[in-house]
Every structure is written in structure tokens, then in C-alpha cells.
């Protein structure tokens, strides 16, 4: 199930390139990427994909990945809890890997049983910051 990491890496590389050009960077030196636990991204493969896909303005970029724990908050009773990857069956886990919101089909609030909860942190992948050198 790891090929999805390549699609995510492709999206990150494309987005960073766009931001870097918009900000007038000559090259990007570091990209900090937050990876939500809910999506169960395999970090090694994701990082490998990023390094394989980087080119041009990103050629020298170092990617720093940071995992963000997935916390869920029930809208009905207010219970907050952590997502437990091992609690899902294989099919469900794979579905959540591709579409994190599919969690609402398989996980219920441990206190009141509601499927109406918010993923407070740790949903998916986003770019936290980009460091680079500007054109003189």
C-alpha cells in the first residue's frame, strides 16, 4: 500500500516549487513537512519519494518530516482521544490511509458511540515551512 506516498510526495514537491517561485527564492534549502498520524504515511518511503522527485529549485533541499499525533474530539459528548492504528481491520486501515475521513465509517467515540467527531490534529500531510536563499 505504499505507492500512495509517491502521490503525496509529488504534491509536496509541486507545492513547494510554486511557493518558492512566488517568494522569489533562488533555491530551497529546507522544507519542514508535518505528517498526520491518521493517514499512516510510511515515512521512509515518503522521504525516499521526496528525494527522488526533487529537482531544479529543490535540488539542494533537505526534507524534515515531523509526525503529528492524531487526536479526535467528539462533537456530541466532548470526549477527546487518540487514534489507534491497530484498532482498525486491514481494509479499514487501508481506506483511512488513502482517505483519512473514511475514519468516520470505522471509528466511533469510545464514550458515547457517536461518529460525529472532529479530527483535531494529525489528519494528513502539510507543509509547515520552507527555507531558502533569495535572488540577490
Amino acid at each position, binding site marked *: 500500500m505504499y505507492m500512495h506516498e*509517491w502521490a503525496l510526495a509529488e*504534491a509536496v514537491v509541486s*507545492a513547494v516549487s510554486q511557493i518558492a517561485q512566488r517568494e522569489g527564492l533562488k533555491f530551497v534549502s529546507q522544507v519542514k513537512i508535518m505528517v498526520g498520524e491518521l493517514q499512516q504515511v510510511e515515512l521512509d518511503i515518503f522521504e525516499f519519494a521526496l528525494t527522488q522527485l526533487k529537482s531544479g529549485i529543490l535540488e539542494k533541499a533537505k526534507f524534515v518530516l515531523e509526525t503529528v499525533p492524531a487526536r479526535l474530539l467528539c462533537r456530541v459528548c466532548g470526549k477527546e482521544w487518540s487514534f489507534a492504528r491497530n484498532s482498525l481491520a486491514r481494509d479499514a486501515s487501508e481506506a483511512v490511509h488513502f482517505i*483519512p475521513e473514511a475514519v468516520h465509517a470505522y471509528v466511533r467515540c469510545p464514550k458515547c458511540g457517536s461518529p*460525529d467527531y472532529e479530527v483535531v490534529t494529525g489528519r494528513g500531510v502539510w507543509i509547515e515551512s*520552507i527555507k*531558502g536563499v533569495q535572488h*540577490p
Partner: protein
Amino acid sequence: MDRKHKRCTASMMDPRVSVISGRLKGVKRVIAVSGGKGGVGKSLVASVLALILSDRQHQVGLFDADFTSPSTHVILGASKIQPLEDNGLVPCVAHGLRYMSIVAFSHDEALPLRGTDVSNVLIELFAITRWGELDFLIIDMPPGISDAALDIMRLVRRLEFIIVSTPSLLTFETVRKLVRLLADMKAPVLGVVENMKMRESTFLARQVAAMGVPYLGEIPYDPKVEDALGNVKLLRETVFARKLSEIASKLESCP
């Protein structure tokens, strides 16, 4: 940090959005089958239109974007809709159509999603689905002018809309607002399809013409459709499909 170095905070940048247009670059036309409200036959029009265009040797994709009430898999009788992993997701093929539905991920479970969740699912699916080369991508839109419909308009800038309406004044009232909204957003409307017509009336055709929108044609209420659901061979033989086929010809000839 000296003046030459710069740190950009990019937390508002969703990396997925940047690849969506690229994912659709091999798609010649993206047709959104929409409606002012639910229950007017959008999913049936979208599914059978996709089959008709595929029967005419076009490469066609069908994306069920109605996440709260997906039904195209039932219409098509598509039971195995597992996409293939290959640098993203390659849609499965159902009756010749490249097909994507949230059901591939929610299976038989209910999927209660709030507006933000729906947006996220839409972005994720548009960002990771590799449609490849298509003549038509048909999108079965969520009803009305919901968050989801607005998101699709935001994410896919070259949508062409078909609006499905029933002959009822109640439906037309919602269609009128949808047409106005699309005009404001400068989204092209191919026209309005009058579905489930049960008696002679020119009401909808006149109203649509008054708005300056093409009236694509009428489809009578066809009781045989219910028994044909899930069986594409029977669906193709319905009056519904025959009348929609005439409408499809008009769409093919649009530039």
C-alpha cells in the same frame, strides 16, 4: 538569518491542491451533472450518460462526488470498485468506465461527514486519482450549492454543467438559483435536462429559455428504470436511456 535567506511559513498551503490540474490534464472535457436539489435523477443521468458516451467509443470516466449519498455504484451494479495503487490511485473499470466512488473507501458503512471533511475528501481524491487520457470525465455532483459543490467548482476550473430538473416548480425554483450562481461564477452551462416528465407541459422549457440557458430535452418518467437498476444491459434498453442518448448527441457536438 541574513538578508539573502528567507523562511516562508507555508502552513496555509495545502500541497494536494497544486497537483489537481495536472491530474486532469489528460481529460478533454469535464462535465458536472448537477441539480438544484436532491432526488431529481442526477446520478442516473450521470451514470447512463457516461455509459452512452462510452458506447460511442469515447474514453469516459465517472466520478461519484456525492459522498453522503453515493448511488452510482448501485445504478451500475458495480460491486468490486477497488482502485489500483500506482503512484496514486488508478480508478477501477466498470462496464468500460473508469470509475471512482467514495464507496471504495467507506464500503457498506455510513460515512457521516461535515463540510470540512467533505472538502478534504474531494481534494484528496482529485489529488491522488490518476484518470489518464479521457474524452469525458462525468462528475455526479452533490445536490444544490453545498460546500461540496462549491469546492468542486473551486478545484476544477473547467467544468461544464448539465443541470437536471424535474418539471416541478419546486425544482425549478432551485435550478433558477443554481443557474444564477453559475453565471456569477462564469461557469459554462451546457443546458437543462427535464427529467421524470409525466404530462405535457412547456413550463420548464419556457422558464429555461427565459434564463438564456439551452433546454437540452425531456425524459419521460420511465417506470422500467427501477427494475433495470444494477443491470446496465437493461438500463441501456430503457426509454430513459434512449431519450438521454439524443441529449448526449447534443453534448458531443458542443465545442
